[in-house]
């Protein structure tokens, strides 16, 4: 087994080479956080797509199909579902960031919404992605690495090694290393996904054997349900409380899952890449041809083939597939998967470290911190986050899994402040803050973490995970939108801060849209809603039998739902192209972006106020902890 260490060494050497190169470009710390806003657009496009695919496509997407079949059909539309938020937000967020000279999402929220709650909430989401979401994927890879090393490495040692490598290149090269290396990692991850699909197909015996195997499963009444969406919705109490009739893969389960995926594109780590990009020229092409096109094709073809292979023969799951290959191929594919996960993990770590130090600690508790010390402190914190995630992978995998499940739905709650900044000018500050707060509460109440926490404190909720087969992201957003609408209606007279007023004026003046765009607006709404309805919404039930003839045969030679997904992917690609270019939602703006300079203000010493904040913070932590202990002792279950 020489190939795995050999390829691993090559990967580590390449990683550290790019980290060193980036550190020199950075001047050590000068442009550590944002690569001097100079990432080339094509690199950003690849990094955004690679961070979205990460290890998720194989570790979660293919696994879902392999275990439960095609019922959760929205998984196959991940490419388009991930591209749509990019089309909606990236261009406008980039313009706002450039105009206000801001380089991270928490900072943007503070400037625009003047809300410490939103800033802290965004930082928490960033930490969840860095520690839990990335940690869960790294944990799966560590186990795989241990298995492929024939016992030479234990999962714990593998997790530590992966953590060390991650820590090394993030703290040395910062955002620039993540960008440069990310382009390479995205291509490696894509190649690994294609390679795995090819080997899965070869192992099964070719396309005809794959279809014959699927046909055999579809003919068996015990497994026929794996090729169907089991209705629009099931009014069950949720996983762990009441099983759904048939299976959990309803149309609303698909829709809400797709919404959760869309949370990824609103996350602080993805916005970090957007705000570090040198020009918005690549957003339209990136979202259309890279994300929805190339990576969308990988989801709908490659991920589906890997999943279908496992569905036919459970021994052809990822681990089985890799152990059955020659060692040079399994090593190459594993490095590809590792590259995808490390891309996302590195980005998440940098964004979490920056959020906590540069966006929370420095402005609130230590404004005198120099730039060099800010970078140093961020590096230390990134190290602590890596230690935390490795320890959680080894010691508390269940908690890690529960926390990881919170990342996407909580991130999706950031849609309302993002929409308020970019499109919906009538959303007010109190509405956004209250909406996000209620949305987060709804997510917690429908996720195992919140349910377990309340159960530990003696409060058993009458529902489990995904009540009514609807993902927590949708429960959170329903609450979030309802509260935001209601509060906005009553607080329309409240004004905005100076930076927000300037940002609103700038966007309104510069991006009014041509007469042609205004004329196409109703068409855009119609086709978008139609696609959402048919591809990831209730219309998925049509896909159950759309490509089955009167004799019960598959017209396309593959399951009807898979054929439906293929046609909807083509339609989705057209939709993304139409919105990006024809509606000018992501196309490059033909405007200069002047930098906004706030009016000079008399600065007063913050030392006393910061000391007071630090004291209050420590007291709050102590009181909170004491209250939690008292509550647990009083009401907690033994």
């Amino acid at each position, binding site marked *: 087994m020489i190939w795995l260490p050999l390829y691993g060494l090559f990967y580590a050497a390449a990683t550290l080479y790019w980290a060193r190169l980036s550190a020199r*470009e950075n001047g050590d710390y000068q442009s550590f956080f944002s690569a001097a806003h100079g990432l080339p657009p094509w690199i950003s496009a690849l990094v955004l797509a690679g961070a979205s695919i990460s290890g998720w496509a194989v570790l979660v997407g293919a696994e879902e199909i392999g275990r439960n079949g095609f019922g959760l059909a929205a998984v196959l539309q991940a490419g388009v579902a991930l591209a749509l938020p990019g089309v909606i937000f990236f261009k406008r967020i980039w313009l706002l960031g450039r105009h206000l000279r801001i380089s991270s999402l928490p900072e943007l929220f503070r400037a625009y919404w003047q809300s410490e709650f939103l800033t802290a909430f965004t930082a928490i989401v960033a930490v969840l992605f860095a520690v839990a979401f990335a940690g869960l994927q790294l944990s799966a890879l560590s186990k795989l690495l241990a298995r492929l090393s024939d016992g030479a490495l234990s999962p714990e040692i593998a997790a530590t090694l992966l953590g060390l490598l991650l820590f090394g290149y993030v703290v040395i090269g910062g955002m620039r290393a993540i960008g440069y290396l990310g*382009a390479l990692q995205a291509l490696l991850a894509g190649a690994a996904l294609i*390679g795995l699909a090819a080997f899965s197909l070869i192992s099964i015996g070719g396309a005809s054997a794959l279809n014959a195997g699927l046909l055999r499963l579809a003919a068996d009444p015990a497994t026929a349900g794996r090729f169907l969406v089991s209705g629009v919705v099931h009014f069950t109490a949720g996983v762990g409380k009441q099983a759904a009739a048939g299976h959990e893969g309803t149309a609303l389960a698909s829709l809400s899952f797709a919404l959760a995926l869309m949370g990824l594109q609103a996350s602080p780590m993805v916005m970090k890449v957007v705000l570090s990009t040198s020009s918005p020229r690549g957003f339209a092409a990136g979202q259309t041809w890279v994300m929805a096109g190339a990576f969308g094709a990988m989801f709908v073809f490659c991920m589906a083939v890997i999943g279908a292979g496992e569905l036919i023969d459970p021994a052809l799951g990822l681990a089985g597939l890799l152990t059955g290959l020659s060692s*040079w191929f399994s090593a190459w594919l594993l490095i590809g998967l590792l590259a995808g996960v490390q891309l996302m993990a590195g980005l998440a770590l940098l964004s979490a470290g920056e959020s906590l130090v540069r966006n929370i600690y420095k402005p609130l508790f230590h404004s005198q911190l120099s730039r060099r010390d800010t970078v140093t402190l961020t590096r230390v914190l990134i190290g602590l986050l890596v230690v935390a995630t490795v320890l959680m992978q080894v010691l508390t995998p269940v908690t890690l899994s529960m926390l990881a499940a919170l990342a996407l739905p909580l991130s999706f709650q950031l849609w309302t402040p993002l929409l308020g900044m970019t499109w919906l000018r009538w959303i007010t500050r109190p509405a956004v803050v209250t909406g996000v707060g209620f949305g987060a509460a709804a997510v917690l109440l429908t996720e195992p973490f919140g349910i377990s926490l309340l159960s530990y404190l003696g409060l058993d909720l009458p529902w489990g995970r995904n009540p009514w087969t609807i993902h927590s992201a949708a429960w959170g957003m329903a609450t979030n939108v309802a509260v935001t609408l209601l509060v906005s209606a009553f607080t329309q007279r409240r004004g905005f801060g100076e930076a927000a007023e300037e940002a609103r004026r700038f966007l309104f003046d510069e991006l009014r849209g041509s007469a042609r765009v205004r004329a196409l607006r109703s068409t855009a709404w119609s086709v978008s809603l139609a696609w959402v309805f048919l591809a990831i919404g209730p219309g998925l039930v049509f896909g159950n039998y759309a490509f089955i003839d009167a004799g019960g045969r598959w017209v396309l030679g593959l399951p009807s739902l898979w054929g439906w997904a293929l046609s909807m992917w083509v339609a989705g690609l057209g939709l993304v192209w139409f919105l990006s270019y024809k509606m000018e939602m992501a196309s490059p703006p033909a405007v200069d972006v002047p930098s906004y300079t706030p009016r000079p203000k008399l600065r007063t010493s913050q030392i006393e106020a910061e000391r007071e904040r630090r004291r209050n913070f420590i007291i709050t932590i102590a009181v909170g902890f004491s209250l939690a202990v008292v509550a647990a002792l009083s009401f907690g279950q033994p």
Partner: protein
Amino acid sequence: MKQTGSSIERSILIFAIWAVLGFLGLGVFLEGMKTDIWLVSACGVSVIVLAFVAHITVNGVFDTGFSAGETSLGLGAYGVLGFVFVVSAAGGSLTMADYYSGLTLFGVLAAGFLAYLFTRHGLRGAFSRFHVKPMDKREASL
């Protein structure tokens, strides 16, 4: 030496090409040797040739040639692999399929290398790349 923006972008592309196509080609080539099927090895060689074509295309886009590091790494790897092949062939541990696979790899790479030199620099220019003139004659020709 500090790299410029475009040279960094070129380097990223070169890394990506060899990480994806180079290692894939190597894997397919080794698979052919393992299964004793020359055709599979030849497919691996084709993928490696494809990687070279992509590398040269990127060089063309960025209006540059192979860097000194790339040249030395390529020639070094060729030399080491060639040495291993000769030793293995001399030791008699290669099957006929392995033998032909090796010959295909080294033959195609050598032919490709010469073709690249001739098309890029011309016959005389390609010779001049290796013909180091003595200092006094170099000065006389100026």
